[in-house]
């Protein structure tokens, strides 16, 4: 008889949703009731919208349950394990019959995320059992040369998954071409794009795939040192990377003759970032690893020639490295089979915002944005109207609903004015104000500008001031032209990607939602009802019971009326704080 196995998803988002308590509860129950059950842990399965997730494998099949808190865990153990009767209400997926959640997984192709949610990330044996370190082993066994490996990566068509989209093989070729006594390979794990969390999930869920990718990259370019530059905000990722590094060293995957490759000495260290978005830029990242302010410098020389400690250096993103072992093991053609002409393979997207199913999805390049949001994501929360999707974070832009049939590949997304970026997809509905979104990103880039280039440092501040005025109802008709002019100057006169792309959120919203800007400026209205100074609060007299709660809470005494009679708001005294709206129990306050 097969022993029943219970697996709890313990990624950062699972833990945030309470998976740690669920795990503890199940553990207690197993001990207390002397159950013959194996309890295991894994990381993010991608279905963040149903966290905490618990998977039960027994002789009848595989059952994935969602939203299992402590109480439900008790119920699950009692019904499923003790009484052998699966609990249908909490079931997300099973191999026995179809469920609505199947559409979230059906069209996904998992290459980068191949092990995420499948293995215990703290056990190297589980990674090895799924083909781990076989790609590096293949290099040793077949005596592949660095040129062979680079050719495979080139042929696969893999492009940098961090956002730039530069062909990875080409980058490796450049770095391998420079002679030096020392070379470095760096993994950029400084995932700073608000709205993107795929790198965190990969590091937490499958750290060894990143290490193996770095080992292969290190071999290809002739490096002996690897550095993982990881955000300090990801403590769990750092913890699991450290465990993985110790295990890999103990097993000889790192060190002298790493992975059995004769004469290849390679080790990896972690550098914790200290919180600066600009450090995602290669030269700024290098400055930060060296212990300086993370400010970009002029290129050339490119890092491939002179990078960390002035030695040839190659930098790739987490997702890129995680895909490399798969490519080396399965061959370039297997990867290039997926995708479009110029963007091969698959891409991981972090679906978030006003979408029903938020989480991580990996789809072949070439799927339409609409399919990602509606087929996989299940559509818009509360069945509201889909308005736009923000791609590429602060460097990207908002793609409107009518362009949702754009396919996801580097060039098609760039043509809309947004960028592929690291793969954040923040979905927005009719209640999102596009001017407010533009202001949000500008505020972010303004804070994160390193200050080196005048146009980026001061220009973003000036743009932000204009946007603040517009959202406060003090916009001027000349503001739009001034925004466009400033945007162009910032793009033209900034050294690095941060400045060159900082105006994108404003430019794309202006391009697709100019009418919203005009409504704010000319009519002093916020169509999405977000910008508070542009709203009017009124009391619907039919619904008002005269309970006086609003009047008592109004900070400016703008509300008056007799007890048990409809109240009114004096618009001249109203400061639009929204207090009455949030306090009213009868939905009697109307926003317009």
């Amino acid at each position, binding site marked *: 008889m097969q022993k029943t196995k219970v697996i709890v998803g313990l990624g950062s*988002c699972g833990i*945030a*949703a309470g998976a740690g308590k669920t795990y503890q509860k199940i553990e207690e129950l197993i001990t207390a009731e002397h159950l013959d059950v194996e309890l295991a842990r894994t990381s993010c399965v991608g279905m963040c919208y149903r966290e905490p997730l618990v998977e039960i494998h027994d002789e009848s099949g595989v059952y994935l349950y969602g939203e299992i808190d402590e109480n439900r865990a008790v119920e699950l153990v009692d019904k499923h394990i003790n009484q052998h009767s699966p609990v249908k209400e909490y079931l997300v997926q099973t191999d026995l019959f179809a469920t609505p959640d199947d559409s979230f997984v059906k069209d996904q192709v998992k290459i980068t995320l191949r092990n995420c949610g499948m293995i215990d990330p703290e056990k190297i044996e589980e990674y090895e059992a799924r083909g781990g370190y076989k790609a590096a082993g293949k290099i040793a066994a077949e005596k592949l040369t660095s040129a062979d490996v680079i050719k495979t990566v080139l042929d696969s068509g893999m492009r940098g998954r961090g956002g730039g989209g530069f062909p990875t093989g080409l980058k490796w070729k450049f770095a391998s071409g420079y002679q030096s006594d020392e070379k470095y390979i760096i993994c950029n794990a400084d995932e700073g794009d608000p709205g*993107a969390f795929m790198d965190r999930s990969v590091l937490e869920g499958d750290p060894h795939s990143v290490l193996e990718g770095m080992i292969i990259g290190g071999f290809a370019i002739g490096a002996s040192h690897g550095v993982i530059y990881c955000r300090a905000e990801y403590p769990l990722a750092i913890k699991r990377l450290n465990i993985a590094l110790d295990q890999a060293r103990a097993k000889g995957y790192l060190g002298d003759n790493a992975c059995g490759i004769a004469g290849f000495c390679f080790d990896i260290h972690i550098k914790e970032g*200290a919180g600066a978005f600009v450090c995602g830029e290669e030269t700024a990242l290098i400055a930060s690893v*060296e212990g300086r302010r*993370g400010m970009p410098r002029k290129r050339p020389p490119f890092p491939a020639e002179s990078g960390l400690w002035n030695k040839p250096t190659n930098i790739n993103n987490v997702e890129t490295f995680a895909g490399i072992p798969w490519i080396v093991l399965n061959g370039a053609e297997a990867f290039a089979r997926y995708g479009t002409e110029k963007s091969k393979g698959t891409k991981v997207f972090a679906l978030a915002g*006003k979408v029903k199913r938020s989480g991580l999805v990996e789809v072949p390049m070439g799927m339409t944005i609409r399919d990602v949001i509606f087929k996989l994501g299940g559509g818009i929360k509360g069945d509201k109207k889909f308005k736009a999707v923000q791609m590429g974070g602060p460097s990207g832009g908002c793609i409107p609903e009518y362009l949702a049939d754009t396919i996801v590949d580097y060039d098609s997304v760039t043509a809309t004015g947004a960028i592929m970026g690291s793969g954040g997809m*923040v979905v927005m509905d009719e209640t999102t104000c596009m001017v407010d979104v533009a202001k949000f990103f500008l505020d972010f880039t303004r804070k994160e500008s390193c200050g080196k280039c005048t146009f980026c440092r001061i220009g973003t501040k000036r743009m932000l001031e204009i946007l603040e005025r517009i959202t406060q109802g003090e916009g001027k008709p000349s503001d739009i032209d001034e925004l466009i002019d400033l945007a162009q100057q910032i793009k033209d006169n900034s050294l690095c990607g941060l400045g060159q792309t900082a105006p994108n959120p404003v430019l794309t919203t202006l391009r697709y939602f100019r009418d919203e800007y005009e409504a704010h400026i000319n009519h002093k209205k916020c169509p999405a009802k977000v910008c508070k100074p542009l709203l009017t609060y009124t009391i619907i007299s039919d619904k008002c019971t005269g309970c006086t709660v609003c009047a008592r809470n109004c900070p400016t005494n703008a509300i008056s009326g007799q007890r048990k009679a409809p109240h009114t708001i004096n618009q001249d005294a109203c400061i639009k704080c929204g207090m009455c709206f949030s306090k009213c129990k009868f939905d009697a306050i109307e926003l317009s």
Partner: protein
Amino acid sequence: MRINRIAKNHDQSMLPSPDLSVIEPLLARYKGRKGSLIPILQGVQEMLGYLPAEVFKKISDETGIAVSELYGVATFYAQFRLNPVGKYIVKVCHGTACHVQNATAVTEALEEALGVKDGQTTPDGIFTLESVACLGCCSLAPVMMIGDETYGKLTGTEAVKILKNIRIRESQSAAD
């Protein structure tokens, strides 16, 4: 650009001078190693909770790194604090997903309940309120993090309730 300076009006004399000898083993460990400036500052902050003005001189004396360089790095990165913080740092996420799901309301409710502005510490030294960029838990937006604990799908009222419970716990343990 972020502006981050040691507050001028901050009455340093009111605070007990932190015991700087605790950082000596750390400095000894990193002494002479290249690229160790950021790990040193991170380690010191871990021990003292922030980077007091006196500490720059001490690190400089021990490692030979110029004070200007130390201060330049400490003011560049968001992680470093130049002023003392509360026992609990309440990090309210203002990433894109949290922003479109009204993280502002969470911060506003906390500001009102605690009587401090974003970035400030309550007079009793228990809470420091902070807005942070993406915590990477976008599917649970809006999110806040206190210590290692993350709280998701918040409203202003719920966030205030969570803090109230912490404060009750604190006053109970103080009474014990």
